[in-house]
């Protein structure tokens, strides 16, 4: 059974790890969590993202946005690498998540066949 005792041990380990790491310049993954996104499967996309980040031990910020008016393209997932354009992927399936994370987040190459929009840094 998962216990708070276990959480305390985890905290001690993580504090050491965090002290040693530079925290700036992390990649960001943004998931559309409007009613349209949720109805289209955003929660399952997020779970696939979390699983992939855990599996590959990747330090990525995961955050959310509301409905941005592209409801017919949901679920939407955006990737923003430090200093790069923000890329929006549409009609994402849990299977696409691994590809987006490996090719884009890890290797820095946009997955062109899934990308539907790009925004300059600081856009929206």
């Amino acid at each position: 059974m998962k216990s708070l005792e276990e959480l305390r041990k985890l905290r001690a380990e993580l504090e050491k790890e965090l002290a040693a790491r530079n925290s700036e310049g992390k990649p960001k993954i943004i998931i559309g969590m409007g009613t349209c996104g949720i109805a289209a499967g955003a929660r399952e996309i997020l779970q696939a993202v979390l699983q992939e980040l855990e599996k590959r031990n990747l330090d990525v910020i995961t955050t959310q946005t509301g409905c941005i008016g592209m409801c017919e393209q949901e679920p939407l997932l955006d990737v923003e690498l430090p200093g790069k354009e923000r890329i929006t992927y549409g009609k994402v399936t849990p299977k696409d998540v691994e590809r987006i994370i490996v090719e884009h987040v890890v290797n820095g190459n946009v997955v062109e066949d899934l990308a539907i929009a790009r925004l300059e840094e600081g856009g929206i």
Partner: protein
Amino acid sequence: MRELSLHILDIAQNSIAASASLISISIDENPAVDLLTIVISDNGSGIAPKHLNQITDPFYTSRKTREVGLGLALFSQAARRSGGELKVNSTVGRGTEVTATFRYSHIDRPPLGDLAGTLLGLIVLNPEIDIVYHHQYKAKTFALDTRVIKKELGGVAVNHRAVVSWLKGFIYEGLDDLYGGE
């Protein structure tokens, strides 16, 4: 929406949009009296009285970007279709409470679905917001309060992937235990 847990995730988004710092989700499964009650409350900005009777109208929304707002309309419809109803109480500046009831055994009642996925999603994507979860099934209870968890974590982020992994186990095990033996 296929699952009530997706409606809960969606309604909680309204709380987030209303700048809530605390969202409380309570589920009471009481098959003995054939009743399922879901309450989602927050300490957000609240809804003005003149808008309260419009909010389950799909063609009413407080957003300026478009003219439909489906979340509460869909949740209300799911409750009514299952022999229940949806009520919204709100005080401007204090917060909002959404209560949905369902006839537990009604054939059209959607399943609760992946509640752990909903909770995990809310916590991970909104680490600055506190979530209090209380789930009763018959005589058993599972509860989670991110304020307690964050206190244990000190300076470690609640959405650190190692913590997310712990949370995932904690929630899935807690919910399994709730339904244990059935």
